[in-house]
């Protein structure tokens, strides 16, 4: 149903609310009283909406909360979601919410939900406004257009930790004129009259665009992707320092979001950065002193362990729809007590995570490593192999190991071998991602594509088993406490039975994944891989000829020993 585009007119900044009302009321009927409302421009943490050419904001009036998303250029409305502020806050505080899922239920929001993914729109700024609606009718009493007058209030004090406060000083009052279909000429006439009477000017898009253009809000440019750009002459130690600096930067950037639990992707990105850093530690082991390696390994292991439990619960809660969908329709609601149990357990795990993250030890460790890797990467080795040679060698060894281990797997090989192969695959992928800028693009993209397919099968094989075990453990835990009410006991019995069915389904899927492995590995272990190995060997040989003799450091490296680092933090 095509809706005519809203026209927006910015009026003279010196006009008061009353003055504009007097002018408008002469030609349109006011509808309802003046309302106070807060407009909150928002975007995902990684600026996905802005990148997709969209501008979104929340409007909050009393307990009503509406999310509106417009085309950044044309101002056309692309999605609208209404929910109460109470519900929004309550849901956000107990479990991970995927805003895109809310949106996907609306007919208009399918493409926008794919833009958002698992990220939620977060406030970029707050703009309190007075707003009043008017309706203009023809002689039949028929509504021919709606007008909304939005009048920014004076800027308020910046609250601690709050989004940027904007106000009258930053944006002039504006009118939004919503034409009714079939009455566009009347709308044009009214717009022209408004411009004359109120000294207004047309603006081509919404107020969010105006705020961006005026520099009052800045779309975020964060990306969790490894965007490391090394040249052919980059030394291995320089590459190591830059890689770790990037990864600890990602951890630091996501740290406040993990604490605030604004969406599950903060924790996800944090954990991916930790895992990548562990892979980088292996890759660059010879570029760091033993003390540094040990201290770093200790800290990364700890970060991985403390963030694991919440992420595990997130995975099940985010998968709720799929898990319920795997059951017959009559049994889907039987899982309610299970998900209630997960929400409670997640809350406990989150409390532990927050207290662990907020300790001085964790904060100091993160800032220490970020500071350490931001310093000058003075070399510890007399001969620096150069990053391209190091990367080629590491990649060749890892790929050879994977191919050798994979070829040994038969139908009778125990599951552990496949799990180990998955770990090797992960290492290979991380090395590949970290060294992409010094490798040939065809080698990287071909290997990465093929590896991803194989890893999906291996991931399914392991995940289905882990999930099936988790469900049975959860069933066991849920069965323990004594319940007084008969209905609660019945619900729990039904939930345990549903978990049993679900667990069986997952084990069936695991068997399917195992059956797919042989074909997928054969596809991975092809001539292209042999060619990749050859290319990598050539690169190594070339690099070894060009080995650069690094300058001897004037001073000793600043790396701290494990005990020294601990002392400093204390």
């Amino acid at each position, binding site marked *: 149903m095509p809706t005519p585009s809203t026209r927006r007119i910015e009026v003279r900044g010196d006009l008061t609310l009353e003055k504009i009302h007097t002018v408008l009321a002469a030609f349109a009927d006011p509808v309802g009283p003046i309302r106070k409302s807060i407009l909150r421009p928002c975007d995902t943490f990684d600026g996905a909406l802005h990148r997709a050419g969209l501008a979104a904001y929340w409007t909050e009036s009393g307990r009503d909360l509406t999310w509106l998303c417009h085309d950044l250029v044309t101002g056309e409305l692309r999605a609208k979601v209404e929910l109460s502020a109470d519900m929004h806050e309550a849901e956000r505080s107990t479990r991970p919410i995927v805003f895109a899922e809310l949106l996907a239920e609306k007919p208009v929001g399918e493409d926008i939900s794919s833009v958002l993914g698992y990220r939620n729109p977060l406030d970029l700024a707050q703009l309190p406004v007075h707003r009043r609606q008017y309706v203009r009718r023809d002689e039949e009493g*028929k509504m021919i257009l709606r007008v909304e007058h939005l009048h920014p209030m004076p800027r308020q004090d910046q609250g601690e930790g709050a989004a940027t406060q904007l106000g009258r000083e930053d944006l002039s009052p504006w009118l939004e004129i919503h034409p009714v279909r*079939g009455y566009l000429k009347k709308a044009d006439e009214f717009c022209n009259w408004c411009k004359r009477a109120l000294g207004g000017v047309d603006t081509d898009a919404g107020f969010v665009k105006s705020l961006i253009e005026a520099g009052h809000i800045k779309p975020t440019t964060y990306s969790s992707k490894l965007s490391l750009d090394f040249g052919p002459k980059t030394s291995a130690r320089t590459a190591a320092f830059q890689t770790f600096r990037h990864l600890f930067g990602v951890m630091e950037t996501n740290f406040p979001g993990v604490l605030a639990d604004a969406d599950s992707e903060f924790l996800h990105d944090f954990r991916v950065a930790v895992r990548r850093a562990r892979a980088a530690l292996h890759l660059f082991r010879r570029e760091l002193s033993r003390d540094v390696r040990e201290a770093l390994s200790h800290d990364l292991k700890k970060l991985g362990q403390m963030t694991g439990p919440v992420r595990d619960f997130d995975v099940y809660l985010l998968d709720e729809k799929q898990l319920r969908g795997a059951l017959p329709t009559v049994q889907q609601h039987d899982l309610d007590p299970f998900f209630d149990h997960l929400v409670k357990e997640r809350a406990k795990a989150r409390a532990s995570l927050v207290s662990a993250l907020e300790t001085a030890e964790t904060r100091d460790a993160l800032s220490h490593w970020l500071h350490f890797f931001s310093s000058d990467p003075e070399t510890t080795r007399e001969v620096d192999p150069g990053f391209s040679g190091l990367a080629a060698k590491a990649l060749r060894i890892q790929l050879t190991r994977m191919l050798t281990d994979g070829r040994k797997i038969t139908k009778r090989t125990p599951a552990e071998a496949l799990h180990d192969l998955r770990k090797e695959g992960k290492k290979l992928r991380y090395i590949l991602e970290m060294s992409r800028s010094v490798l040939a693009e065809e080698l990287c993209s071909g290997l990465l594509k093929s590896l991803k397919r194989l890893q999906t099968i291996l991931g399914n094989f392991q995940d289905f088993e882990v999930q099936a075990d988790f469900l049975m453990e959860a069933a066991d835990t849920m069965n323990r406490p004594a319940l007084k009410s008969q209905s609660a006991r019945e619900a729990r019995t039904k939930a345990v039975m549903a978990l049993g069915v679900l667990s069986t389904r997952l084990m069936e899927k695991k068997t399917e994944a195992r059956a797919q492995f042989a074909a997928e590995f054969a596809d991975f272990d092809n001539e292209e891989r042999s060619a990749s190995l050859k290319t990598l060997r050539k690169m190594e040989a070339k690099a070894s000829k060009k080995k650069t003799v690094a300058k001897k450091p004037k001073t000793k490296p600043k790396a701290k020993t494990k005990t020294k680092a601990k002392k400093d933090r204390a």
Partner: protein
Amino acid sequence: MKRLAIYNMKGGVGKTAAAVNLSYAAAQLGARVLVWDLDPQAATTFYFRVKPKVKGGGKGIVGGKRDLDDLIKGTDFEGLDLLPADLSYRRFDQLLDDQTDDDAIFKLVRPLRDDYDFIFFDCPPSLSRLSENIFRAAQSLIIPLVPTTLSLRTYDQVAAFCEKKKVKKLQMSPFFSMVDRRKKLHREIMEAFPKKHTNLLPTPIPYASVIEKMGVERAPVAAFAPRSRAAVAYGSLWQDILDTL
């Protein structure tokens, strides 16, 4: 896009009231709805406060000189649009006679299929070339029946006509309209009719002064008297229709 025609060859049975109130009920549930007022009396157009004026008239539409898209007017209600009628529609039959096939109306609305979830044809009371076109364009014929002998007779005539013309895909859904339960005849017919016609929609629309008041308010009943018996009945009748689609 589901195409529904509110039709009875007899006049004064509540067709226009049904078209206005059912389309409003559909739009209130979030559907994108278009009502095409095909009656030259333009009563639906009047109820929605739109001027009874069609640029180029019926001739412009049937002759293909005007796109329906350009003639659509938004109503005061979100999600509900109207294609108004005017007096030129009195020649619709004549204009359709000049066409080679009976699918002219279907071909006219086909380009709107992605824009709307439902299109309601508010038909004039006759059995004519326009009616034949409507029977071929619509998927469902919603037939208001006043529980009287004559009204039931017209239903049988329409059913027989459709059978003769082999309009097989058309689903016929009659419902009782302007029901006055104080009348013995109404009660008797309402008891006997469903035994022979299992396709009867279960919700009857009462005879109510609030429906007549639509002419004063110029709006659907639920917009100015949402708790009235008639408003509730139309809401429930829309659910019955949804169940049949």
